[in-house]
């Protein structure tokens, strides 16, 4: 199920980008949301979680961008942050929104800073703020939808989902 959720989110991100206008308030980061929502399914196997996140980041780099390893780094760091957050906060329906917002903003900022660090972009605080601002709504909606779907599947198969 983990692989399915990650791959569907990954492909969906590419498809949605084609439908939503470039400068809209609905920038999709479904791959990042997917690694957050699937975290409880890894049953404390942090190494496995990091490997999956890094691999998805690498696939992301190769498919959607021309910058190898930037997203691999960003996905790995984001995955590490997710493991840290989930140590202190339970990933349930109520906390999900807050954690998604923090994770997405963190990931976006890290990616932007890495791109600036490797001179792919020049730093512009307004661009960063506008980018962050536009990437909240669609990702919160997506995370909530995926969370409910996974929760139902887990209930059906009598698996524990909440972390």
């Amino acid at each position, binding site marked *: 199920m983990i692989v399915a959720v990650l791959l569907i989110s990954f*492909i969906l*991100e*590419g*498809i949605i*980008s*084609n*439908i939503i*206008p*470039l*400068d*809209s308030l609905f*920038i999709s*980061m479904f791959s990042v949301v997917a690694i957050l929502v699937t975290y409880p399914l890894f049953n404390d196997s942090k190494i496995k979680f990091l490997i999956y996140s890094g691999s998805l980041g690498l*696939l*992301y780099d*190769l*498919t*959607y*961008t*021309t*910058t*190898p*390893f*930037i*997203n*691999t*780094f960003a996905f790995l760091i984001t995955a590490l942050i997710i493991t840290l957050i989930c140590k202190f906060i339970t990933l349930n329906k109520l906390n999900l929104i807050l954690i998604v917002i923090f994770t997405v903003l963190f990931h*976006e900022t890290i*990616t*932007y800073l890495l*791109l600036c660090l*490797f*001179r*792919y*972009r*020049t730093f*512009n605080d*307004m*661009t960063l703020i*506008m*980018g962050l601002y*536009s*990437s909240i709504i669609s990702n919160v909606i997506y995370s909530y939808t995926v969370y409910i779907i996974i929760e139902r599947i887990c209930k059906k198969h009598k698996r524990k989902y909440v972390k």
Partner: protein
Amino acid sequence: MLKNGNNKKCIILIILVVVGILVVVTTIAVKENRKLNFFEKAIKDSTTFLTGTIYKPIGFIKDKIKENDEKNKIYKQYKKLKEKADKAKLYEARIKVLEGEIDNLKTSLDINQTITDYKKINASVVNRNVGAWYNTVNINKGSKAGIKEGYAVITDKGLIGKVVSVSNFTSTVKLLSTDEVINKISVKIEVDDKSIYGLLSYYDKKNNAYIVEGISDNTEIKNGSKVVTTGLTDAFPAGILIGEVKSVTKDRYELAKAVEVTPSVDFGDIDIVTVLDRDSK
């Protein structure tokens, strides 16, 4: 068997070494115009094909909705055009004369860089600006269709950017709507019969306008004047529409004019593009 503490240290050491190697590789690899290797090309081609196939039914519905809107618009336009159609014969004759004059001028001035001389490769956009910060679109034609890095990319409304990386069946196009100062393009502003030359420096996202700098000419520039490429560099052919003058101000150093240009292209809605094959001119 290693003890638990040693094991942890070993893992941290391995992670540090891997991260170090990745940093070095990334520093070398993160260049916009670099050539993709076989592995990158294969993954990019297959995943783009997959997403493209899944997108097809969605795209079909989207196209149908668009088509319906277009039909309504076209019907209104048809009525207007019908009136103009009577004058078409007059225009045809005039075009023939003008074409002849252009050919003569091209021969005498040794110019062969107008847009009409370029082979056009049409392509569809597969995904747009995934990852938010890249300002790129991926298209479904690559080196097998004759596309190479650096080729100009246009839509029916004007210039949108240039090809930055190519795999066998896909290409990545860097859009002009980036706020980086890397897209210096030689442009001219057409004011009445005169051309005023300048340099398109960057895109101001806040005002949705290109900024053209380096204009020393004192001629008054009217709002609404057309801005087109000059073709003075090999990157972009001459005569591609970039936009219209929005306002005229002073540049950052208050020395020369800076012109705000409204893009002719809506960057939020790019579906079909044309790549201009520079080598076939």
